[in-house]
């Protein structure tokens, strides 16, 4: 006996196809990436999530403009495939403030010291600094020197001052 012809859906509800992809958390929200798992995190954040605070500078992991934190550790988003972040927590500059919108100490210090000139490298600088302070709450000059992120405007001295100020803010002191 032939099958009856398909009947139109009355409810308008259609079954959703099963989707597979890479699940990960960005700034506290869960996402699934269903495209090319090799897509660099940088371009997924920017083109797909439209989190454009993370910047492209070189594509070879040399400048640090795309620095994000993956499970709290600095990573070059331009060289990190989305697949490599599967199941992990990614923090971008948009997620540095706490959920109530209170700025991270490095953000406050960056404003107080008026660090940015062109501002392009600063998201990466902020995340590098935040990670340094999480690891070393009272960083030495040598610790700060070890930050490899590039800036052509010459904001390094203010970055240095801002990291010290942020350390004081994090300790509860008012610098």
């Amino acid at each position: 006996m032939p099958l009856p012809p398909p009947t139109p859906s009355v409810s308008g509800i259609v079954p959703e196809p099963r989707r597979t992809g890479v699940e990960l958390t960005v700034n506290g929200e869960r996402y699934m990436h269903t495209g090319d798992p090799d897509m660099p995190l940088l371009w997924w954040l920017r083109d797909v999530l439209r989190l454009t605070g993370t910047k492209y500078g070189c594509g070879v992991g040399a400048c640090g403009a795309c620095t994000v934190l993956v499970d709290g550790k600095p990573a070059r988003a331009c060289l990190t495939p989305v697949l490599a972040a599967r199941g992990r927590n990614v923090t971008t500059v948009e997620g540095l403030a706490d959920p109530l919108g209170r700025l991270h100490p490095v953000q406050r210090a960056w404003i107080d010291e008026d660090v940015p000139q062109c501002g392009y490298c600063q998201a990466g600088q902020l995340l590098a600094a935040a990670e340094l302070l999480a690891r070393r709450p009272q960083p030495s000059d040598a610790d700060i020197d070890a930050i490899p992120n590039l800036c052509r405007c010459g904001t390094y001295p203010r970055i240095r001052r801002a990291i010290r100020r942020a350390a004081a803010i994090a300790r509860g002191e008012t610098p």
Partner: protein
Amino acid sequence: MNAGNGFTRRGFLRVLAAAGGALVVGVPARAWAQQDGREDLAILGDSWTALNAFVRVEPNGRVIIGARTPDMGQGTRTSLPRIIADEMDADWTQVKVIALPLGVEDDQGAPRWLYGPQSAGGSTSIPNAWRDLRQAGAAARWLLVQAAAARTGLPPDQLRTEAGWVLTPDARRLGYGELAADAGKLSLPDAGVALKSAQAYRLIGKAAQGVDAPAIVTGQQKFGYDHYWGDGLIAMIVRCPYFDGELDHLDASAALAIEGVEKVLPLPAMPAGTLLGRGPLAAGVAVLAKDTWSALKGRAALDVRWKPRHGGAASTSTLESDAGRALRGAPTTLVRRNGDFAHAFRTAARRIQAQYVVPFVAHATMEPQNCLVRVDPDHAYLMAATQTPRSAFDVVRQITGLGPGQISIEMPRIGGGFGRRLDNDYVAEAVLLAKAAGKPIKLQWTREDDLGHDVYRPFGVHALAAGVDRKGRIVAWRQHLASTSKLWRRGVPTDRLWTSELYPDDPPAGMVANLELAWFALDFPLPRGNWRAPGHTANAFAVQSFLDEIAHATHQDPFKLRLALLGTPRLLPYASHGGPTLDTGRLANVLQLAAQRIGWGSRAPAGHGRGLACHFTFGGYVAHAFEVSVSDGKLAIHRAVAAADVGRVIDPNGVDAQIGGGTLDALSTALNLAITVHDGAVVQQNFPDYPLARMAEMPREVEVIQVPSQADPAGAGEMGVPSAAPALANAIFAATGVRLRRMPFKPGIARIG
């Protein structure tokens, strides 16, 4: 780099009057507005009054000020509005700054510029603003006072203003917000209105925080490529690596097979007869894709080969010998001659000669070039990270044939300019592709594109010679420069190509009786362009290094030798940009301040050496002093001092950032950077072989000394660069006895034990 200002005072006032009550900024409904969450539109709210092209006031007293110059880190989005806000006595805490687009209207087929000069180059934004934007603030204030006079029945001259209020003699306060609607109906006197006296400044001269800092540190600040336009495509271009080369072979099938790649097309040619101002575009093949990753994959999958042209064998390795040959021949242009150099040199008690080599360098702005373009049949829209929006406008007109009223250009915040974005080659590429594709295009350059297809700071060999008399005075001076002129291929006649290479009134011209400056043309197919403080970087290095060599050869103190050369404070004529005069007293003053701060004359710690240099750049006077040591081939910069006299300081915080930042930029470049060419193509690919200095290499602080001045402001973007490299070379010599005459310094430093 001198920004043309075809904007008379009379014309400016007419614009102000015409714009009173007219909608000028951000309001015309734009096709892409809904797609892109235009913050500027949201900011404006529904009811406000335009007092002129730059100022509007909301009923609640909030003042919105338009910043006309793109901000690439030089701080004009903060400093320009503060000049206006001060003149109008606005409450800075109530000011919201918005970026103005290119202000242009169709005036019977010709463009009429609404906002005056909008380009960012030659450190001219502040001097230009000083000339005309104060009038915008004063006009707004005048209108508000007139409205208050009408409201209160008091004569205007009995009213004063303060931080957003008009105050009456009997202490009544009328807020700008409540007066704005009336003020917007008044018209300005033809003669213009009076400006404040300097004693009345409340913002000018006070440190300001950058208005965009909060948005930058939270990732909310949008740069050009942070925008997405509807169904736009990402475009990437593989360019011919050989100068003036051509496409030889293209098989796009593998690229087109990649998911997300929509089109592959050779970059269309510019319409016949059009000029870019920097020579032709490189031949290229564009990959258009739905997202950046697909475009990158498509680009990598292209099977493409290129044919070299005349530049196929070009190499920088032979440039220096070419320069030597040129210098032994006759000069292309005798730039300046005073007295009789040959005789004075021959008869001098001491004769000193040295050669200095300055390599090609790239800009390497942290943000690679990008541009968003949509070309409709009757309108073109651009989001262009450019320093010269009017030139970008010309490019769009040439390619599309659209009229002045059919081209809209917005300038986003720019991730570094340094002169690179005075050229609009990437804008031309994006417009060509958007027109060909019939869709909005976001052109994205990679870092490799950026380093390989820049307009580079020229290469030069400076041959200096000086004669010194028995008293140690310089009596003869000769600078012969063989260089690849920046102006090559820019429509400049051959006999004017020297003008970008030697500035005839630069010190020590006018200070040495027998002087000869001559330029020798070097031919090389690499495109050249403006690099922060263009020719000054090379000339200050040669001249200020050589002065040190003279001092050491004749057992004089390099500081005192410079002071003696500068002589009694006087005005010397200065015909190049930054003139019409050079004040030797102001130059000596910054030199003295820097010397004093570094502790010149006192004993340096063991192994440390100190060096000085000073230079006049575009109207600003800067001296640098460093204290350094070298051990195991590694340089340590223990102290860095920069003393700057840039005229009246609008924002001391901004000047500190520009002079300090310019110093580090100069040090990074002088130490590390060179572009070389092999087999007709640029060798350097990315930061690993074009290593901008990292934090660890740079001094921990730059002590910037600002000279208080009542002189008109000169800007500050470029002055911090030229004297830094020679001061560093002089300090390295003082510490080690090794003279570095060739940039970059790092290989030379590594050879010092």
